[in-house]
């Protein structure tokens, strides 16, 4: 008995010893002075427990700057580093079993009261810190998969969210731009940087606010940017990635003739040194993952293709995730610095895009009129091919310490081809089909557009006095050559009708903008901004339509042909008072604007002159009680001019069932916007809250007036209406537990929209209420990551014209992703996404589908830089693209066939000049 007792006690003692041994923290690191070059000797380093401020341990740095701080158990504590020559440095450490040995290869001490206060946080080896108002994430401390791109990294960063379209929000606020080392990467498309740059080339990810220089009119508006700072070695030498994937033509693509092998290929190569950067990228694929850029909108000035508010029966038609895509993208990026002090910077980039999209979609719409209801069924096949060459140049020169001169020309050359075939069936309330049509459109377009900015920015010896003078020139020039072929069968009348026309559309515009903006400080906290904008612009649209007569297109159709000019002269001036302290920002201003518009019908020589005066007030208040807490109220007003296609008084019969006519009397709209936002983030606990609301009210809003004929075909034009409004509120939070291994993210949004339209002469007011609760959970263990997302959206549209459309509907979305890595280099990834559209309208389809993807991969080579993976996309073959839109008096259910099940065998090889495993480098600066 005694023996067992002793054995037991000694075992307990052994385990206590063993665990105590294993659970001691060990912090090692090297200290440097503020230049980052001289090791710092004899600095004091102490660990203070967060819970009760108990001193856990302390040490001094050695001659070579190194230090070891150990001898205390795992805990959450702050490290204070002090040296009389520098300001104190703070690092927060969340110790746990996986995070008990931390190496901080290089700590640079902050200079005395020169630098902004800096706080660094280590949680699960994730240092995050604030440098003044800039939130800094140290990239290497976030584990990403081998071969990961920046987007994968961004998804790991606490407080940052990326949605399916690549839109990024930080603590609930939208990121407007992604920069690389402070500059735009290939143009402004953020996904080019986030989807192409290798995650391990990134040193830090910084989020800060920046004055938006892109806006014409010298506004003081600030945008949030995400700046990817490249590693020093990434700035010197090269790194790259090449990957290829194919299904070996083993996937039969349903309803697609022949076997079409799926493929994905990527090449990325970056060569850098401190002054010069050359990057080359290419991407080719025919899978849905190809969409690394967002669709190039407004490419050819073909507003028919744009789907912007008017083609409501064809929602989503600008979204190329629907359909079967084929993408080729390639580009080169070059930048260099010149001059003795390297104060002139030149950037040049060229990108080539070739996108093809084969989309089949079907939609069912119900149009509600006071006396009757129409149904239409459309099925469309759209093939489009767009090719563009984009050249961007930017020369920026710091002429002296106060003066900056910038010249940024850019040119885009575009070529496009679209073939679309539409079959439409029109059914009346009784359910009897009255009309069946077949519409074919073939268009070939060519375009050239330029956008140039010349900007002089000057500071003065007097602090906060600033002057900006800039000139912008924007030109577009497009030509579209189209063929229209239609046949219509009037079932009740028993007659048929057909159209065969050639259409030439020539479209050009030139706009000059001159802006002067001047800031003058009037006291310690107050300054005044005086701002003046002059705009002179003209645009021209020539449309010529000819019927085919005896095999030749020479039957001129005057009702579809026109030549129209629009000239506008705008003078806008105003002043703004700005009050700014560390915590408060208050600005209020008033602008006066006069715009003189001449709409000139060059055929009939009828000139419509509009002389419009507006006051444009604005107000902004921002309260920042701390660097991670912010409250903003923003009110502004703006006025947008109608597009020329909405003005030109000519019929557009590209879809003879949906004829559009321009309205030369259309006035610019006037929009009031109010935004309220509140965000807070607690760096220590990782909890965050984002919330806000917005309200927009539009006067002279652009709305559609639609008239229906007996078959339900429409003719529409854009008119001005008052009282369109939208309001929404949203709030969300992140709540991590268990050393941030699990994070709960509940959120809720609600919206109300009112838009008006006219059906004939009757006003139709549609109110749509929607409420969307969402609940997400992220789990993150060492080798296992699970993410769970769920949302439910309830919508209740109410239309004044017809109560039949007032049917509430809901959308439920649940998704689960699992990423599991095994020690032998094998990884498994699965994700499932369940969607249920519950739409109890009369005869409208309910849809429910579950998309399940899986991947297994294995790493090879000593460096593990080669990954071979097998991917299965939509294993259950259920993927569809389905939406419902409620627009005016129409409810449309729309679905597109998209690529569903396919398999890919993929090889990905990463390389760099260091010939080492990409994640060997753990240092940060």
């Amino acid at each position, binding site marked *: 008995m005694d023996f067992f007792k002793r054995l037991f006690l000694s075992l307990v003692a052994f385990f206590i010893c063993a665990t105590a041994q294993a659970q001691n923290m060990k912090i090692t690191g090297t200290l440097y002075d503020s230049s980052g070059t001289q090791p710092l000797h004899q600095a004091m380093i102490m660990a203070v427990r967060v819970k009760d*401020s108990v001193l856990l341990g*302390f*040490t001094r740095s050695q001659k070579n700057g190194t230090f070891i701080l150990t001898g205390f158990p795992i805990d959450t504590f702050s490290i204070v580093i002090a040296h009389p020559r520098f300001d104190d440095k703070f690092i927060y450490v969340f110790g746990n079993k996986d995070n008990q040995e931390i190496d901080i290869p290089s700590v640079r001490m902050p200079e005395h009261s020169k630098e902004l206060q800096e706080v660094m946080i280590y949680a699960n080896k994730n240092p995050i810190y604030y440098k003044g108002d800039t939130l800094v994430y140290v990239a290497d401390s976030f584990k990403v998969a081998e071969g990961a791109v920046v987007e994968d990294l961004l998804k790991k960063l606490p407080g940052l969210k990326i949605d399916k379209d690549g839109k990024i929000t930080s603590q609930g606020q939208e990121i407007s731009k992604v920069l690389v080392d402070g500059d735009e990467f290939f143009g402004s498309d953020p996904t080019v940087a986030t989807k192409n740059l290798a995650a391990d080339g990134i040193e830090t990810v910084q989020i800060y606010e920046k004055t938006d220089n892109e806006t014409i009119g010298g506004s003081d508006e600030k945008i949030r940017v995400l700046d990817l700072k490249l590693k020093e070695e990434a700035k010197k030498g090269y790194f790259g990635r090449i990957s290829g994937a194919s299904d070996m033509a083993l996937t039969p693509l349903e309803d697609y003739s022949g076997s079409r092998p799926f493929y994905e290929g990527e090449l990325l190569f970056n060569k850098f040194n401190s002054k010069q950067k050359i990057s080359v990228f290419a991407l080719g694929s025919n899978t849905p993952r190809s969409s690394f850029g967002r669709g190039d909108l407004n490419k050819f000035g073909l507003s028919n293709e744009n789907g912007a508010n008017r083609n409501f029966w064809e929602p989503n038609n600008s979204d190329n995730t629907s359909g079967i895509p084929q993408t080729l993208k390639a580009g080169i990026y070059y930048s260099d610095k010149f001059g003795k002090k390297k104060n002139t910077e030149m950037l040049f980039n060229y990108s080539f895009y070739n996108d093809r999209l084969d989309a089949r979609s079907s939609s069912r719409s119900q149009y509600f009129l006071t006396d009757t209801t129409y149904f239409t069924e459309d099925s469309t096949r759209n093939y489009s091919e767009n090719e563009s060459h984009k050249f961007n140049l930017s020369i920026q020169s710091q002429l002296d310490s106060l003066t900056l001169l910038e010249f940024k020309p850019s040119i885009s050359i575009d070529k496009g081809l679209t073939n679309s075939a539409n079959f439409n069936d029109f059914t009346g309330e009784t359910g009897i089909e009255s009309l069946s049509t077949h519409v074919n459109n073939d268009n070939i377009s060519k375009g050239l557009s330029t956008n140039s900015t010349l900007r002089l920015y000057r500071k003065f010896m007097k602090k906060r006095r600033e002057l900006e003078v800039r000139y912008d020139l924007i030109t577009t020039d497009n030509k579209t050559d189209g063929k229209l072929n239609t046949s219509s069968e009037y079932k009740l009348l028993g007659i048929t009708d057909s159209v065969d026309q050639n259409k030439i559309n020539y479209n050009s515009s030139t706009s000059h903008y001159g802006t002067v903006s001047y800031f003058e400080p009037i006291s310690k906290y107050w300054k005044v901004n005086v701002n003046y904008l002059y705009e002179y612009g003209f645009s021209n649209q020539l449309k010529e339509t000819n019927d085919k007569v005896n095999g030749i297109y020479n039957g001129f159709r005057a009702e579809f042909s026109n030549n129209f000019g629009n000239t506008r002269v705008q003078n806008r001036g105003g002043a703004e008072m700005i009050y700014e302290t560390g915590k408060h920002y208050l600005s209020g201003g008033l602008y006066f604007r006069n715009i003189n518009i001449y709409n000139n019908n060059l055929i009939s020589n009828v000139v419509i002159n509009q002389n419009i005066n507006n006051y444009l007030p604005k107000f902004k208040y921002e309260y920042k009680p701390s660097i991670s807490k912010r409250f903003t109220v923003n009110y502004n007003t703006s006025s947008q001019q109608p597009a020329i296609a909405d003005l030109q008084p000519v019929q557009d019969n590209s879809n003879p069932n949906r004829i559009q006519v321009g309205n030369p009397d259309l006035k610019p709209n006037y929009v009031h916007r109010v935004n309220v936002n509140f965000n807070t983030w607690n760096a220590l606990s990782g909890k965050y809250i984002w919330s806000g609301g917005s309200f927009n009210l539009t006067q002279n809003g652009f709305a559609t007036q639609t008239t229906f004929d007996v078959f339900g075909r429409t003719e529409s034009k854009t008119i001005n209406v008052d009282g369109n409004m939208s309001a929404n509120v949203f709030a969300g939070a992140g709540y991590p537990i268990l050393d941030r291994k699990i994070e709960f993210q509940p959120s809720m949004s609600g919206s109300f929209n009112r838009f008006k339209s006219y059906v004939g002469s009757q006003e139709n007011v549609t109110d749509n209420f929607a409420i969307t609760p969402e609940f997400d959970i992220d789990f993150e263990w060492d080798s296992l990551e699970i993410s769970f997302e769920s949302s439910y959206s309830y919508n209740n549209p109410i239309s004044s014209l017809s109560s039949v459309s007032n049917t509430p509907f809901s959308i439920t979305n649940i998704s689960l992703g699992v990423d599991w890595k095994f020690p032998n280099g094998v990884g498994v990834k699965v994700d499932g996404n369940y969607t249920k559209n519950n739409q109890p309208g009369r005869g409208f389809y309910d849809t429910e589908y579950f998309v399940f993807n899986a991947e297994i991969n294995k790493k090879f080579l000593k460096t593990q830089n080669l990954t071979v993976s097998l991917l299965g996309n939509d294993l259950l073959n259920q993927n569809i693209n389905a939406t419902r839109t409620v627009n005016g008096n129409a409810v449309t259910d729309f679905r597109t066939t998209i690529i569903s099940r396919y398999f890919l065998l993929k090889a990905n090889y990463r390389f760099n000049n260091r010939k080492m495993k990409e994640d060997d480098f753990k240092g940060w600066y």
Partner: protein
Amino acid sequence: MTLKAGINRFLLFTGLLIVGNNLFSQINTGRIIFERKTNLKKRYGDNPRMKNFITEENKYRTENFELFFNDTSCVFRPIPEDEASSQQGFMKFLTNKNTVYQNLNKKEKFIIIDLWGTSAYIKDTMDKRSWKITESTRNISGYNCRKAIWQMNDSTQIYAWFSSDIVPSVGPEGFQGLPGAILGMATEDGGVIYFAKDVKQMELPTGILQYDAKGKDVYTEEKLKVMLKERMSQWVKPKDLEAMFVWL
């Protein structure tokens, strides 16, 4: 430029250099002079026998100590008093003046404790105290200090201001264990206050850190405490005895 102006400028420059040096450098070796102020009323206030002797006029007792230190060792010892302050009669027996040697590497201390006129010797390991670090700071004799708190017992806290610019982990009496030298120390109620009046970087006089324990009765702290409790219980309250040892 005249020669005089040049010299003035030179002096100004070196002056700045010296100031700058004091501000931004660290000390590893030197001497700190402490003034200890004891509020006897607070220290012995609840002792009815003492009440008759301690008045508002004589309640403060001020003594001076010096702390010599280098990277490995230190000694804290009283500075002999001049005539005037030694005329306080028996009052001087109300405070102890100890000499404390500490070997920072061996974590050992050697104490010559002053027991009402006779010396006793203690050799023991250095105490490990649990400090709480606060965010408050103050400047003592030109050094930026952080405030730390030690919970002495249920009722008393000791405040210590330490400067990490003085590298060795030293302090008055037997206090140490903070990342730097303690330049100010006080009981929560202000009954006893140590305050550095002067900090000087200097070479230490040879042998000043050496002690000679030969031929002396050397006790451990605990042993001496037990012994004193046994022998002195009729003179000294156990609480006051504890208070004596707390500082060692």
